[in-house]
């Protein structure tokens, strides 16, 4: 299996590079650009508690003629949000630094198909805000409302090929993906999910590291099309769960040591978007087979397998007097559930968002999320102002509260007000 995936990847890579070599290096152009973001948050849950995040990205973009190009990104982050989200008191809050490669890929474009090879981000689905179909790339789940979606995503090593076609008024595409190196999301502290189920003084988590290249592989594809005001996509991906399940490693009266593991799963989905006058209706539905969820039985940490169905329907309103809105209903359901599980069987949310455009380039966003069953609430607001041609100022706040068993209440430690500056540069 390993040998077969290795040889197929080498074959694909060789074929790709041979195609690339046909593109003459007639004109080579290079550009460097990037951004630097600094954000300061004053938390409202704990007095005199501040959080910071600094993020930088530098990107080199090369064009080798009209068909071949390359992107090389380097990212750097420094943040304290992991500690801030912890439910365990953390007086020695430590900032975390990380430098890593962002998107790094070669792209070959022809008239009817495009191929990319390297570390990249691929996003599926029609909805935005809450995106159940965004299953390919692992994410930094510690990022919350005021981060760009692209800042929370980690690139994945992929061979990505997409073919385009047109039949009368129908235009469509077929995309194939293959990854020889699964990667996992950065999760919230396990206490967030476990609640009181693992109430011990010390909880040590052994993270599962990224598997060696070609040891494990993932593959999938998407067929998408548009016809007469209607877009659809059907997709499937066989991959290693981006979220972990935990197994017990050792336990004493005062401490527990657990391992983070990721099982192989399959997701199948459909996404739809339809224009209804000046409204746009969107829907993403994703079925994930045999996803493992943890539970505690007789003081033992166990996991069970169950199918998960995530479904979302949203409607965008037209802009009226500079106001526009989005209403989203999202539900995540497990087919089966056991007592003392790390999640609920059904999780339902209703999200309303209003955006006011001010003077063409500024905007004020206000959103409210309501969680059903165990009632939870979230209120988020953000004022965005491009103060210069290259600098954005953002001011805002986010507040999480509700029933102690609600998911939204688990984020209450990051409730706070923030100010951020983002500067873009280009050489």
């Amino acid at each position: 299996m390993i040998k077969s995936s290795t040889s197929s990847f080498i074959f694909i890579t060789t074929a790709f590079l041979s195609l690339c070599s046909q593109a003459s290096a007639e004109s080579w152009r290079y550009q460097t650009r990037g951004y630097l973001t600094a954000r300061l948050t004053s938390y409202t849950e704990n007095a005199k508690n501040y959080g910071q995040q600094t993020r930088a990205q530098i990107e080199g973009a090369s064009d080798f003629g009209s068909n071949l190009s390359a992107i090389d990104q380097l990212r750097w982050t420094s943040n304290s949000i992991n500690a801030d989200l912890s439910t365990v008191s953390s007086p020695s809050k430590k900032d975390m630094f990380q430098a890593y490669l962002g998107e790094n890929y070669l792209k070959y474009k022809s008239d009817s198909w495009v191929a990319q090879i390297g570390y990249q981000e691929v996003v599926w689905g029609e909805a935005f805000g809450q995106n159940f179909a965004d299953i390919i790339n692992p994410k930094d789940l510690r990022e919350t409302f005021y981060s760009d979606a692209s800042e929370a995503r980690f690139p994945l090593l992929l061979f990505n090929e997409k073919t385009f076609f047109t039949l009368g008024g129908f235009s469509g595409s077929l995309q194939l993906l293959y990854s020889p190196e699964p990667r996992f999301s950065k999760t919230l502290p396990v206490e967030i999910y476990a609640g009181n189920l693992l109430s011990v003084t010390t909880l040590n988590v052994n993270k599962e590291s990224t598997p060696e290249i070609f040891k494990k592989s993932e593959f999938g594809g998407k067929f998408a099309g548009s016809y007469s005001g209607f877009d659809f996509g059907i997709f499937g991906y066989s991959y290693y769960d981006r979220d972990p399940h935990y197994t017990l490693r050792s336990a004493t009266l005062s401490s527990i040591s657990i391992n983070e593991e990721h099982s192989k799963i399959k997701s199948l989905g459909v996404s739809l978007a339809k224009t209804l006058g000046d409204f746009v209706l969107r829907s993403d539905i994703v079925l994930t087979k045999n996803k493992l969820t943890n539970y505690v039985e007789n003081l033992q940490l166990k996991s069970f397998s169950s199918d998960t169905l995530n479904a979302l329907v949203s409607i965008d309103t037209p802009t009226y007097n500079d106001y526009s809105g989005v209403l989203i209903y999202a539900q995540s359901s497990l087919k089966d559930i056991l007592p003392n599980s790390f999640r609920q069987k059904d999780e339902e949310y209703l999200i309303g968002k209003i955006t006011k455009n001010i003077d063409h380039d500024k905007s004020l966003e206000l959103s409210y999320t309501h969680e059903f069953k165990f009632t939870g609430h979230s209120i988020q607001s953000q004022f965005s102002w491009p103060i210069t041609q290259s600098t954005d100022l953002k001011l805002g706040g986010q507040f999480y509260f509700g029933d102690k068993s609600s998911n939204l209440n688990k984020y209450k430690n990051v409730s706070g007000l923030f100010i951020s500056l983002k500067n873009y540069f280009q050489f």
Partner: protein
Amino acid sequence: MRISTLVISVFLTLPSIALCEINANEIVKKADLKRGLGNISHSFNVTVTDQDNKKEIYHVYFKDVNNTLTEQTAPERSRGRKLLMKDYDIWLFTPNIKKPLRISLEQKLTGQVANGDIARTNYAEDYEATLMSTDKKDDNAYHLALKAKNNKVTYGKIEYVVSKKDFGPMEATFFALSGKPLKKATFSDYRPIQGVSRATKMVIQDYLQKDKISTLIFEDHKPEKFPDSLFNKDRLEF
């Protein structure tokens, strides 16, 4: 006698009415060719400067009036934003969302400079023209009323002033579908492009907030062939 006079005058009037109608649409067609290369496959750049001197630069791929792709190249924060208009469908791609999103037709009107002002500039395709009564003080120009052919176009109505001398557009007043006046534009800086003198500057002023002014400079028009796939929404991410 009276009846025959009436019949004759009706016969004489009808062709002249028809001629006026044809002429009005012909005038708009000729005026369109004074602003761009018409309905042939080509590309061009648009630089939009607002009253605060903030600049936005777009590259437009124009296959025909029903297939246009606009890509923003500056400022850096907006680089890579793409807007695809295909018939009456619109998709937006932004590098941070990383996937094409269908948006509603009214987004064509969003912003002081509507997306339609940049990418869908052939009025003859979208509007039915009639000649308005000529202002005697300005008889060097045709005064036209352009009515939207359907409610999917950028504006409900345009009052258009076109030079009689060379069919060069001079002024336009844009109205919403509700009839509310939105903004006024003047066309100037005629320069030879592909052998024809064409307007390269459009200054748009908000109808109510007169201090809101945007200047659009159209340049680098090049006849160019594009593959169909360039106007496939699933290609926007590449």
